[in-house]
């Protein structure tokens, strides 16, 4: 990995929070980096900790969550050591966030125009008129009529809302845009459209994307590299083409087999038996072992380490030790 174009480096991140049933480690030693202009996919079932990571990067994770270890480095700056003022200027300008449900991430009482204005005015010195122009411009770029600036969130359709949120996320032209399940709530056709629009925007503005989803199929054509998360840890990470061609981890195999390939040959859909573990008491050893068809005796007691099996292809599995 070349260091000059690396914009985000997460090392051994651990996030914990206290639930009623005891402390839960949602993210347990996650490390990865993102390069300039790259689309990095993070895939996994719900509850595996991927959304936690998204919010942790901006440090907007709600109490009672705490970051208990690791570091987040954004272009030579340590996010975990930033003061509130530094965070305020770091947020959105360098890294922005798109949530799964646009309806929930927009304040229902404020027009979308004003919500974009908020962001522009909080971070730049533009006067209101300039800011408004900029907001209108952003809306146009995502295919929304500028007069919609005066609309309230509930007046827009689902797809338009999501586009509006994306416009908001890009209005300061951040270096990295984190997109947490941005299309999950939409129907398939709109999903594809929006993904294409995102790609267009990416090439024209030139930002990186951390794309988080449970739907691996979305990532395959869209991201350069993919990391697979399970139960708070990364179990496999590589270039997407490589991952699809030669998946190593049984969980990855399961994920790949779980969705139909629209263009490819007919395959039997398998799915992964069992359910994600209870994070307050995850299984010992390899966390995936209760659901793994290839589990060995060792997997029950010893946790596998993430190792570079091939160049830029990392796996955490005893099958390959």
């Amino acid at each position, binding site marked *: 990995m070349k260091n000059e174009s690396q914009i985000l480096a997460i090392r051994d991140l651990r996030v914990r929070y206290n639930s009623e049933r005891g402390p839960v480690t949602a993210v347990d030693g996650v490390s990865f980096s993102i390069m300039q202009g790259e689309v990095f996919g993070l895939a996994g079932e719900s509850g595996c900790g991927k959304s936690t990571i998204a919010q942790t990067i901006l440090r907007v994770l709600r109490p009672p969550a705490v970051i208990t270890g690791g570091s987040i480095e954004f272009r030579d700056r340590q996010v975990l050591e930033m003061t509130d003022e530094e965070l*305020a200027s770091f947020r959105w*300008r360098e890294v922005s966030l798109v949530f799964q449900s646009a309806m*929930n991430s*927009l304040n229902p009482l404020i027009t979308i125009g004003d919500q974009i204005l*908020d*962001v522009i005015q909080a971070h730049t010195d533009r006067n209101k008129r300039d800011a408004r122009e900029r907001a209108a411009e952003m809306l146009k770029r995502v295919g929304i009529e500028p007069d919609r600036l005066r609309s309230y969130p509930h007046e827009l359709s689902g797809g338009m809302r999501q586009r509006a949120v994306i416009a908001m996320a890009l209005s300061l032209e951040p270096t990295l845009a984190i997109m947490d399940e941005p299309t999950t709530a939409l129907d398939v056709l709109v999903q594809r459209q929006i993904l294409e629009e995102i790609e267009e925007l990416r090439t024209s503005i030139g930002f990186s994307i951390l794309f988080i989803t449970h739907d691996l199929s979305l990532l395959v054509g869209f991201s350069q590299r993919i990391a697979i998360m399970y139960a708070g840890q990364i179990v496999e990470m590589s270039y997407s083409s490589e991952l699809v061609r030669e998946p190593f981890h049984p969980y990855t195999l399961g994920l790949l087999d779980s969705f139909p390939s629209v263009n490819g040959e007919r395959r039997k859909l398998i799915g992964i038996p069992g359910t994600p573990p209870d994070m307050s008491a995850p299984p010992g050893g390899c966390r995936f072992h209760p659901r793994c068809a290839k589990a060995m005796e060792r997997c029950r007691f010893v946790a596998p380490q993430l190792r570079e099996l091939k160049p830029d292809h990392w796996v955490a599995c005893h099958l390959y030790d």
Partner: protein
Amino acid sequence: MELGVKYIFQRIGFYLVAAWVSVTLNFILPRLMPGDPASLLLSRISGRLRPEQIDALKKVYGLTNSPLPVQYIQYLKQVLHGNLGISIYNFPTPVSEVIATGLMWTLLLGLTAVVISFVLGNLIGVIAAWRRGGWVDSVMPPLMIFIGSFPYFWLAMLCLFVFGFELKLFPISHAFGMNVTVGFNLPFLIDVVRHTILPAITIVLVSTGGWALGMRNTMIGVLSEDYITMADAKGLSNRRIMFGYAARNALLPAVTGFGIALGYVVGGALLTEIVFSYPGLGFQLLTAVQNLDYPLMQGLLLVITLAVLIANFIVDLIYVRLDPRVRIQARE
């Protein structure tokens, strides 16, 4: 700009129904007593009345021999013309005149107290929720519940006793003293203010807690919403988030609840007036009860209810302004 006309019409309809219910209740009540309402009424109070009063009373109540529906229509007509009958105790002053003075004083006391407690209470609630786990948040809820557990009138008695009697800081009764002349002159106005402070403080003490607790709970809910997380992520200032995003949204349920809570506050205000012999509607209600002045009692019920309904309606209008989802139909 859309005004949410449909919503407003719905609300007007509702208030008309409520008003109709109150008027009808007023009609039914004297006829509720077992036996012949006319003679029962008269037997209770006849000893004190002169013949003219008895006749007037009979007419007022429509306690004629016409069938019930006719009486009802007549009564409705009377009310719509603002004729609430003639006060027995203040014979021959019509009820509406008697109420008019009381209404003025109650509005003065009530509006001041309610506005102050609403603003203060919600502010405290916002701060408590924003600084969760801070001292405001830890101390405020149990304290407010505790103070709110006391009956309004008892707190009034306490305030009267401590501040009026023991400490002699404020006057202990009436709306103004003996040594000022009524009118828009400064000594009078100052005296009025001095007399209003204690009852107002009582009402504020008891009712602030309600708003504060409600707002705190609502605000806590709002603060856990995704759009607040987004507001943080957007790097907005704390103040913008607290007021523009959180409090603004939390205000909606507070406004909605205001209407209902108003009913209770009004009740408490009336009781407070009684303790302080403040010449508002509450005090008049008590004297009406003590003197069995039924027309006045019923007139007061009607006026107070109508006032509360109007206040509720105004609050609804404000709500329409605040919540765009009610104003504008969602377009897909």
